[in-house]
Each structure stands twice: as C-alpha cells, then as structure tokens.
C-alpha cells in the first residue's frame, strides 16, 4: 500500500476529483493548506497599502491505494492538475505499513 499526497492549485480540485472518479478512486482526505515553494509569496501594493501574500493557498489531497495502482493514480492526478505554470504543486508517494477499517476490523488492501 502507498499513501499519495498531492498539493495542487485550489481551482484544479474539481478536475482532479473528476479524473480520479473516472479511474474508480472513490475516497480521499482533503485539507485547505497554505505554503510556499518555488512559487514564492509576493507583495502587492495597492493605493499605498501593502498586502503581503507570504503563503499561497493550496489544496492537499491524501489517499491510500494498493501499490499496483499507485503509478496510475499519480499520473492521473498529475495530468488533471497541470497548467504548465509555476505553482502547479507536487505529488509525494509514501509507503504505508498497515490499514485498518474501524467498523469491520478488516486489514490491509481490504481496508483501503
């Protein structure tokens, strides 16, 4: 099992969700996050007032998939989330040791 964490542009969320639905991924955890990477924050000045945008709003998706599916899902997210411009985000893949469905006690792939 793998955990996929994707940080994407907020407006791309619907596209990514749609795309994942098409390949039959039904569950995920979403968080509104802020941060910065290569797309640095910036300063805007308007009418003398300074607006510092130091952290840029993004959406974080987290989902656990069977290892065999992982590449497909990553590629699916990438294609749906790309605009070709700076700040499109990143995808991380992490190994997962165990998963348990609380209701039934099922473990491993069954629980994903």
């Amino acid at each position, binding site marked *: 099992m793998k955990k996929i964490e994707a940080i994407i*542009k*907020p*407006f791309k969320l*619907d596209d990514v969700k749609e795309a994942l639905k098409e390949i039959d991924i039904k569950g995920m955890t979403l968080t*509104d*996050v*802020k941060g910065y990477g290569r797309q640095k924050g910036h300063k*805007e000045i*308007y*009418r*003398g*007032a300074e*607006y510092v*945008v130091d*952290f*840029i*709003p993004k959406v974080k998706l987290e989902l656990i998939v069977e290892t065999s599916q992982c590449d497909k899902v990553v590629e699916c997210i990438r*294609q749906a989330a*790309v*605009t*070709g*411009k700076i*700040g499109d985000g990143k995808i991380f893949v992490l190994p997962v040791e165990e998963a348990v469905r609380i209701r039934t006690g099922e473990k491993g792939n069954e629980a994903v």
Partner: protein
Amino acid sequence: MNSELRARRNALESLWQQGLSGKMLLREHTRLVDTHIAHNFENCLDAKNGMALVAVGGYGRKELFPFSDIDLLLLYEPSVENKLTPAVEAVFYPLWDAGLEVGHAVRTLDACLEHGKKDFFFQVAMLDARLLAGSIDLFNQLVNLFQQSFVEGRRREFLNNMLKHRKRRHKSFGMQNYLLEPHIKESRGGLRDIQAMIWTAQVIFGLHGLSSMENAGLLNNSERRRFDSACDELIRIRNGLHFVSGRKNDQLYFEHQEEIAKLFDFKPSKGLLGVERFMRDVYGHMKTVAVTTDFFFEHVDEVLGITLPTIKDRKLEKGIEIRHGRIHLTDPGLAEKKVYLLMRLFARAADTGLPIHHRTLRLVNDRLLLLNDKVRCSRRMANAFFDVLKKTGERPTVLEAMLESGLLSAYIPEFADLESLAQHDVYHVYTVDSHLLQTVAELNRLREEEPNIFSTVPSPEILFLAGLLHDIGKGQGGDHSKLGAELVGLIGKRLGLKKDEIQTIIFLVREHLFLAHMSMRRDLGDDAFIRRCAEKIASPDRLAMLYLLTIADSKATGPTVWNEWKGALLLEFYLKTVQYLDTDRNNVDTSRKMEWKRAKLADLMGDNKVFDLKSLPDDYLLSFTPEEAYSHIRYRKELDEKKLLVNSTDLDGKWSLLIMARDRRGLLSRICGTLALHNLEVRSAQIFTWADGTAVDVIDVISVVSMEYEDQDWETFEKDLHLAVNLRLGLDYRLGRKTAPMKKSPHCLNHATEDRVVIDNETSDTYTIIEIFSKDRFELLYRITKTLADFGINIFRAIIGCKADQVVDVFYGLDDDGRKVIDPDFQEEIRRGLLYAVKDVSKK
C-alpha cells in the same frame, strides 16, 4: 409492577398518537405516575407518619414530559429515621426497576434548608413542590420554611441569581452548535425561559401564572395569547422530540427535525422543504418567548432598581430622551404625526450605544400600522434608516431590536418573508434574517479591519443596504440572487436612491456570490479570466464593495465558513482585478482623461479642421498617447491615395508594426496570413476601427527564423501585404506550399490543454466577444481570422495574447448585419468552425 408502569407509558404513547398534545399530555403523564407512586407509598402504612413524599421541579408542576426525570423528595422527621428503609424500598425501587430516570432526595427539614442555601436550583425547584402522599403538616412546614428563608425580604437576591443563571445559560446554549440544532429547553426562547419568568413573577410579585400576570398589567392580552400559543407549541415539540428520540433528549438534532416535521405533517411549499417550514415555526416560537421574557426581566430589573444607570438623563431631540440609561419615546402622540421618529429611535440607539426601553419598543410595535406606502417612500425615514445601518457597530444589537419590534419588516415588507427562515443544511447556521443583520455588523467591522479598501467605497450606505438585503430573494425557490436583484431594485426606488445607486445595489445583490465562486474555482493566474471578471465588474468601486460584501457574507454565515485560506484567495483575486481596472483608468476618472487627450490632440492638430476627432473611439484613445494618435491621423491622409500603409519599427528587440488601411471584411485575416508567410509570429496585437472606417492595427511580432531586425525582408513583406489586401495573393496555396519554418516556436510544451471557444454576449453592450483558447501554433491566427471572415464577422477590436504554451485570442465583433451574434445555432456553428480551423493547423 414494572409491567404496570410500562403499560402506563404505552398508554401515554398511544394518547400522543391519537393527537393528545401539549399540556394535556403532560398532565395525563403526571396523573399516571402520581397514582402509581402514591399507591406504593400508602401501601407501607406504618411508614406514613412523620414522612411526606413531595414532587418537585417539572414533576411538581405537573409538567412531566415523556422521558423527563421524576424528581422526588422524601421528607422525614428525625424520629422516624429507622423506618426509612421500607419507605424507600416501596417508593424508589419500583421506579428504578422500571428503568425510569428518578431524581431522588431523602432529607429532613434542616437538611433541606442547608441544601437550599448552597443550591439556587433547589430553591427554585421548591417553588413547584407538590405533596404526593404523607404528612401534610410536614409538607407545609417545608413550604413555609423556604418562603421565610429564601423569599421574604430576599427578592432582590433571588432576581440577581435568576438573571445571572439566565445569562449564563443563554451564553452556553447560544453557541454555534445550538443555532442549527436548538435546545428546546435551555436555548434562548426555550421552555426554561418561560419557567424563569413564571418563577420570578411568583417570587417578586406573588403572581401565579400568565393570566394573573396579564391582570396585573405585565403583559397585554395579545402578547399573552401569542406567548401562550408559543409555549403550547414548544411543549408539543418537546413531547414529539422525546418520543422520536426514545429518551430524554431536548436538543432538536437534524435527524429529529426531519422526523418531527413529517410527524407534524409539514409539507414542502413555495420552494421550502417541509423541515424548513417546521424549523421556521420553531425559531418563530422561540423568538416570541425570548422577546416576551426579555421585556419581563427588563421590567423587573427596573422595578427593583438592580442595574443603576451611569448615563445622565437628557433630551436627544423632540420626543426622544435618555432616561435611566435607556432611550425613550416620550411623546407617542408626536410619532403619530412624524412617523420617522420611530426610525430615529433606532438611529439614536445606534449612535449612543444605549438600549431602547422595552415600553418604547412596545409603543413602536403598537404603531406599525402607521407604516404606509407614503412613509416607506419618505426621505426622512430613509435617512434615519441609513443612519442605523452605518452606525450598527460590530454587533447587530440595534438591528435585532428593530427586527423584533416589527419595524424592519413593516418598513421593508419583503423582509417579512425571511424572518426565522432556516436553511436545512450544516452550512447556514443562522436563520436568514439574523444572517443578514450579522452581515451588516460584519461590514461595520470591516471598516476597521480593511480601512484601505473600505475608504475607496464612495457611498457606504449602499454597501450596508446590500449587506442587509443580499439574500432578500431567499425562500422562494429559484435563483435567490436573481430574484433578490429584482426585489432590491424596487426597494431601492422606495428608499429614494439615485438611478446609478440603484444599478449598483442591483449589481451587488445579483453578483454577491460571484467573487466567492470565482476565487475558489478559477485560475487566478489566467489573465484572460481576470480581464473578463474586471470587464464584468466594470469599476474599482464596485469591485471594492463586492469584495467587502463577500467577506462579510462569508463571516456572517458561520465561523467555519470563513478562514484565512479563503481570504488569501479572495485578496489575490481582488488585487489582480483591481489592477486591471485601475490600469484601464490609471486612477484617473476616464472621462476627464479622455477630455484631456482630446484637447491635447486638438492642440497638436492646429488649424487642421478636415479630420473629425469624434471619429476616434474612446478605447482607441486610451490605448495611445496623443502624439501617437496624431501621427496616425497624419498617416491617415496618405491613405486617401494608397490603400495600405505599413510602418515597422524595432523597439529594443520588440518589432512593432503599424498597419493602417480602410477597413473591409477579411482585412485582419489577410494581414495575419501575410505575416505567417513571412515567418512572423504575432505576440500581441491591438486592432481598432475608427468611426470613419479606418483600421489601425498595431501588431507586435517576432520572427521564427531571422534573429535580427535588419535580416527581415520588410520590402517584400510590404509588397505581399499590398497584394493580399487587394485580393491579388493566393494565401492558402502559398502557405500550403511553403516549407514549415525550421525554428519552431519555442513554446511547444507537450501536454493536453484543450482548445476552447467562448462566445460572450454579456460583457460588452455593443459587441459579441469571441475568445479562443488553444495551443500556440504557427498560422493559427490566420486560420482563426479567416474563419471569422468567412462567417461574415467584422472584427472591431482584437487582443492577441500569448503566454507560456497557451494562446488567448479575443475578438470583439459583429455579424454581417452589424448585430451581435445571438442565434444559438449560429454561435454553435462558429464555435465548431473555429475549433476545426484550430485543429486543422495542428495537423499540418
């Protein structure tokens, strides 16, 4: 025994199902339990002497809800202590065995007194004490003891305690989670408030029950009846809630709301769900209770002189005075003639921060019929009303008072439809009316928090009014923004707003969700998108108002709705869009700028009166300096002899072409074709047509082959362009035969952005705007413009933008008859034609 009690409870449930509701059911339930308990107690006869079994609390009042606690006190004389065990066994055990919730106490008189000193609630519970069985003497001793110890001479203390607990209870049960799912017993306006009032009336004035309160003049008849029926309904709801939850549960959770609405037969109607209509009733009853009990406690407070005013009495204006720290209408007769005084009261309250006296609020409520159409259109009334909105402060207290007095809905009748209106979802925690009042308060708060943006709003009252009315179209089904925009136009007219102010408020109400939607769902890095938004919003003032309204609306929806994350997106949207709007205007009023430009140009022209400056369109003048425009006008003279004029310049590596010609259909496509033939790629272009039919095109190009400006064969280019414009050049065949340029355009990133065509008739009043999004491909522009020409579309203005891998071309055009492209079939045909043309290039 158990089975007997169970059977009784079943009997109770069937009575409920037969429709016995409200107080009757409570009495019936009490009677069932009474007989059972008394029977058990009297069965152990030897225990009877020196003991009394007392019902206290709700049970003592004979208000036993289906799953309420049965609160019992077994009172005994110390001499019979050894006989307690059989009595306790006889009375409590069967109740426990039956699984009932029993609140029990076994005490002597002294122990009761001790306990009463420590526990205010026990004092209060004793007010409802009722002898079930046993020694009446002992019971009377208890009642007298409590009367002497806690009531006589200590009324003020009692009231203080009552007020303190009431305040604390309202605070903890007024929290967010109780707004959506009110607590029928403890929330503000719940059953506990009713009880608190009745207890207090009993202790302070010796009045028992609502009718004696009415007789004593504490309530008038209509208030008493409204209050009574609200109580009945709340009791009925609590009964229903106990039955559907199957336990002692007094909070109206979501799932119970639906179930009880169904049980009480609330059907969907006028765009509202059954459950929404039910909850509207619930909130309405709770409001009646809240307002009546508030008035009552204010009155008692005043009578006993608990809260001492720190403000000096003074006259605010004729008929309105401050007395004892509250605002009074001192001349109700004057208000009959000058109805606007009713509104001035609230303006004064907002201004001074003092509450309006409850008797004055009743006076207002009694005079609502004075609010006729004439008054609703009165300027004085409107001015006072705007004063209230502007001075509301960070909490909508004054507006709430105005709503509760009925004045708000009498003044703006459309508001009545929103009172207590609930939306059945977890998102909207407030009813629509309180959400709207809250929005006004949030706007007032933004005045402090966003001073820079707020200060750009020219007339804040319009913004506040928009805050108050943005959801006015709710509860009728359909799109509430659109419905609201229609209503607010009428309201604005009544309030005497100017025409442009009415347009602004209609815009704000209609678009109040626009920013929230756009900033979350669209790419803020997409300049074409930002530009479209800017064009739709049209002015920095409107943008500022919409921005502030969006924040206030969101904050007033619930604390979980607004967060910094959304704030950051919204601010980014605002800053990007405002810069677009401000570059367009350069912070100077456009009309003044235009005037200045025309005057400057007239200077440059000198005595040359041949050319009519009026034929220069505004957007053309805005895009060029007067000097540039003057040079164009001079070139224009040469056009009378030539058909075409080309002027190319190299500005620090940016190659700029000025092409002027008499406009004709297809001109742009021939220019684009010739550019492609000469390996010139368009980076950006501005296309204008003067009123006299002169086309002025300024096109920035780069060469996909030659590196240096000098290497480019401009002479042949000009010759070919002449031929092309005069229809002497076979562009298609030449382009087909031409070998593709060696050096491909550098921005051919390989990923799938889909080609898109958007046809927009909304943004511009005059033109149909056609936007084409596609990958950057050579010859693309030629294909697009040729296709448009084939459809007979005349292009009046074009903006060509390339960035990264995507091309966004925007054309302002009209059809062959000089009209917008309205016909949907034709639009579809154009869309398909363009998509085909764009695709066609990529195949090549």
